[in-house]
């Protein structure tokens, strides 16, 4: 889009459950400035035309994951999408598909987080005492970190869930975000929770209905590849069924270095505050 535009059109899907029986579209014109993001335009709409317009946002820098919405047909982060990159002088904004609508552009994400929580997205270890009151770090090599590092970049914005054709049709399927995060912890060498998560993953909420459309990975604003995580998870679970799954012991506590010499100009770390 040429930057000589002075105004831009916003076509926004509105829904107020207290007033409307169904969502409807409304259109607004707002002044355009070069470098403007879709989120900034929404603030302009709120300021100039419709103070009741509702959406979620917080960090304005693609970190918190709260501003996911359907922008010109694709799930994206409003704060991370410049209007110039849409190649159109009309910005069409709707709430993320595959979720109920709370109001206007606010999707109901609670079911996604319930599935996420059910798959135990945290390090599970038998040595609870060490986990809760660590004496030192758990050992993990840089190579082992590589196995799951990209999946830690997920910000739980829900864009992948909105793009997933399987999640759209199968109410029992957990969806790419919870499954990707379950795989993230399953492949973390510090974790010993594969057997616990498996209880859920071997059934309907597991990865089985994914037919690798790959849309989740295409729309992820952080470049995470949940489709890959799901295929790797399928492989792990098939290996497990065939008795070939390598049951790893969670990584041990790394010993304190004994041969290192503290430099005089580096002070001791302050005592723990938590």
């Amino acid at each position, binding site marked *: 889009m040429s930057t000589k535009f002075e105004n831009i059109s916003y076509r926004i899907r509105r829904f107020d459950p207290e007033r409307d029986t169904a969502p409807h579209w409304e259109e607004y014109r707002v002044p355009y400035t070069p470098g403007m993001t879709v989120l900034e335009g929404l603030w302009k709409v709120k300021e100039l035309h419709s103070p009741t317009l509702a959406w979620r946002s917080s960090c304005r820098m693609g970190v918190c994951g709260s501003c996911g919405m359907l922008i010109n047909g694709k799930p994206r982060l409003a704060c991370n999408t410049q209007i110039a990159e849409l190649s159109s002088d009309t910005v069409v904004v709707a709430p993320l598909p595959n979720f109920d609508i709370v109001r206007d552009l606010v999707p109901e994400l609670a079911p996604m987080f319930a599935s996420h929580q059910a798959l135990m997205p945290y390090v599970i270890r038998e040595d609870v005492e060490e986990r809760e009151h660590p004496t030192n770090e758990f050992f993990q090599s840089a190579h082992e970190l590589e196995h799951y590092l990209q999946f830690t970049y997920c910000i739980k914005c829900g864009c992948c869930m909105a793009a997933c054709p399987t999640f759209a049709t199968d109410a029992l399927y957990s969806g790419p975000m919870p499954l990707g995060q379950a795989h993230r912890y399953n492949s973390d060498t510090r974790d010993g929770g594969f057997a616990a998560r498996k209880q859920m993953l071997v059934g309907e909420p597991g990865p089985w209905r994914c037919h690798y459309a790959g849309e989740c990975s295409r729309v992820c604003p952080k470049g995470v590849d949940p489709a890959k995580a799901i295929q790797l998870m399928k492989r792990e679970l098939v290996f497990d*069924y065939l008795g070939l799954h390598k049951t790893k012991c969670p990584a041990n506590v790394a010993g304190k270095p004994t041969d290192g010499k503290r430099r005089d100009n580096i002070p001791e770390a302050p005592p723990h505050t938590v």
Partner: protein
Amino acid sequence: MMRDQKLWAWHLIAGAVILVLLGVHMLTMHMEGVIRIQSLNPASVEHVDKDRVPQTRDQKSDEEDIHPIDWANVRARGVRTLYMASYIFLLGAALFHGLYGLRNILFELNPAVWLRKTLSALLLLLGLGLFVYGAWAAVMARAIARAWKA
């Protein structure tokens, strides 16, 4: 609860079986002219059906006229227990792989739980029925081939 894990694992195993047995089928039936494997089409020249006269017969040697679907070859393969077993294996693997895939597609239409159970039961019955019928046909084909030989 581990039903889906188990079904998926068998889906993959069936896929691998199909790959191998379809490979053998391709070698036997369609790649005769490229790779001649005597043990797959064992009939020799004297078994050739002399009534079948291709248009280009005068340009070819007798050996080239032996086709995988010539009765002599069909019979020579049919009498072997290994071939019969491979037909039954391929049938079982293809039915399971195909019907499980169909079940997945139908489940994407998000049917109610009772309909899911009904569909699973129907597909299981269909698969078992076709398998029994196909296995019976393979066994009978072997019996006929043997009787013919005798």
